[in-house]
């Protein structure tokens, strides 16, 4: 059994938001919904430290001339010890054996306990009827079930929670997640963390890719190579 994971190389990321927009397109995310977004941060800072220096994207942190800038693309971390899964009262959020954290759209009661419990702020609730402009469905476009459970459909019901699925329907079809495919600088690597020879495993074991908010013990399957990392692997 594979354990799917991703390594995001902050030293390559140029903050172009292609992965975020690509994710929005393939998953029919309506206006105001971002399963994936690119945050502006400081190099090698723990994101947990206090308020940001500036509320704007693409604006460096710090005071001139000591300015620093890096990007943190953020979507669901597919935690192995996932608080969202543990708090879900009805088991609508569940972990597949290959590490994907998914939401059963037919079971979720919309209590939003998982939104409160997720340390990464990546879950999005369907507050009202979705708005799309232009108003038609794009992207994957069909419903997708795994183990009989509805984990994707183009138009999600009002009153349930959604988030990054690690592109379950593509992964199950031996494709890469869409954000990995569309990244123009190859900053995203997808693969099997249980296979020690996979590129993701090498990046984690030998190149020092790290988990976000690792101290919380959520043990994500998404890893980050810090922006100081000397772009060795895929030059």
């Amino acid at each position, binding site marked *: 059994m594979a354990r799917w994971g991703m390594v995001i190389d902050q030293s390559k990321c140029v903050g172009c938001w292609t992965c975020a927009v690509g994710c929005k397109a393939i998953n029919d995310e309506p206006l105001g919904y971002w399963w994936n977004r690119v945050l502006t941060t400081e190099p090698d800072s723990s994101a947990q430290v*206090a308020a940001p220096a500036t509320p704007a994207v693409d604006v460096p942190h710090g005071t001139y001339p000591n300015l620093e800038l890096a990007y943190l693309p953020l979507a669901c971390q597919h935690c192995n010890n996932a608080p969202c899964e543990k708090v879900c009262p009805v088991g609508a959020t569940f972990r597949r054996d290959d590490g994907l954290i998914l939401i059963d759209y037919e079971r979720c009661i919309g209590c939003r306990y998982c939104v409160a419990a997720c*340390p990464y702020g990546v879950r999005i609730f*369907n507050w009202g009827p979705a708005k799309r402009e232009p108003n038609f469905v794009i992207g994957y476009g069909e419903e997708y079930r795994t183990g009989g459970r509805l984990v994707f459909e183009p138009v999600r019901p009002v009153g349930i929670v959604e988030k990054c699925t690690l592109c379950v329907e593509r992964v199950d079809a031996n494709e890469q997640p869409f954000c990995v495919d569309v990244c123009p600088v190859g900053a995203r690597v997808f693969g099997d963390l249980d296979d020690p020879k996979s590129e993701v495993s090498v990046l984690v074991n030998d190149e020092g890719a790290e988990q976000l908010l690792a101290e919380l013990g959520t043990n994500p399957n998404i890893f980050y190579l810090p922006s100081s990392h000397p772009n060795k692997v895929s030059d």
Partner: protein
Amino acid sequence: MVNSSVRTDLPTAPGLARSPWTWLLGVLVLLGLVAWVYELGHGLAATGMRDVVSWGMYIFTFAYLVGLSAGGLIVASSSEVFHIEALRPLARLGVLAAAVFSAAAGLMIIPDLGQPIRVLNLFIFPNWTSPLVWDVTIITIYFLFSILELWVMVRRPEKKATLTTLAFIGLPLAVLLHSITAIIFGLQMSRPWWNTALMAPIFVASAILSGTALIVLIAWILQRYNGLRIPAATWRWLAGLMVMALFVDLFFVASDYVTIAWDNIPKDRQVLDLILPGGPYQLTFWFEWVVGGVIPFVILASSKLRAKASNLALAAALILMGVYAFRIELVIPAFVNPLIQLPPGTSLGAVSTSGSFQLIGHYSPTWVEYLITLGLFALTALAISIGYRRLHLGRNIQEAAEHVAD
């Protein structure tokens, strides 16, 4: 209202139906229902909640209602377990309040659900790692237990041994209820403001505090408007319970503040700064510590002031406001600064004039939330009024009061 037909406490339904009090409550319940229908049509977009601050008035009111259900059972059980004769007149009223308020707490969750129609999933697919499932279970047990105890009290009052057994079960059950409700919040490491081992003790203390205050307020209304006479000894016990609970509650909260302030860990400190004087949520601080803290404490501590029942009622009303402020302070500020707080912020799940991200959470309830919440409070008051009459509690309080030495 003050009128002689009410004074005799006859259990006639027409008397209740004629009372303007009932009509007012009825209208409020109706308005709440209308608001809920509106919310069902528009989704939770009709509320002030969005991603970032994703829980609001329903949840802090839920926590408040759970707390209010405590006092009754504690007053009732204490009279049995600790042989406090002076509290016996209020035993039935207390258990009635426990039943009604635990049911109200359960009901408060329904409008907060995005898919209320799926609420039974909680019982069909319970996930036992979720504190919410434990809470649903304990609230259900607590409610059924209160109903059972009330039934025995009213229908089988001669079964003294059963009543004592029930009283002994009631106390730990109440403690469990509040601890589990606290744990819903306390276990979440994603919210540093909640993630303290003190959460359960705080919830138990504030539940005893607000629950007793509620009983005091009801007892005073009955004495003032229904002509019941509550013995001075009963008032003394209630005042004592309140002042103890107030002290312990604020002591726990203060311990938490001190720990956060001294450690000065940014993510904890950030939340404390929101509520301390000068912060955007300072109103909750003033209500908790002054309006519902220092002022009632002075009233209750002064032997001159606490001798008057109306002063106790005032203290109780202030305490009830203070505890409500505490529930707001607990829920909302915890969401304002997410752990990962980097530009452009968290996706809102909506497009607003300021874009679709929010860096710092904002929340203010909408009219829908106010009306639904108010409607539920009205329903609760209505249920207590009806229960009070149907169960002839007035007569029972009067009879029991005669056995209490002043």
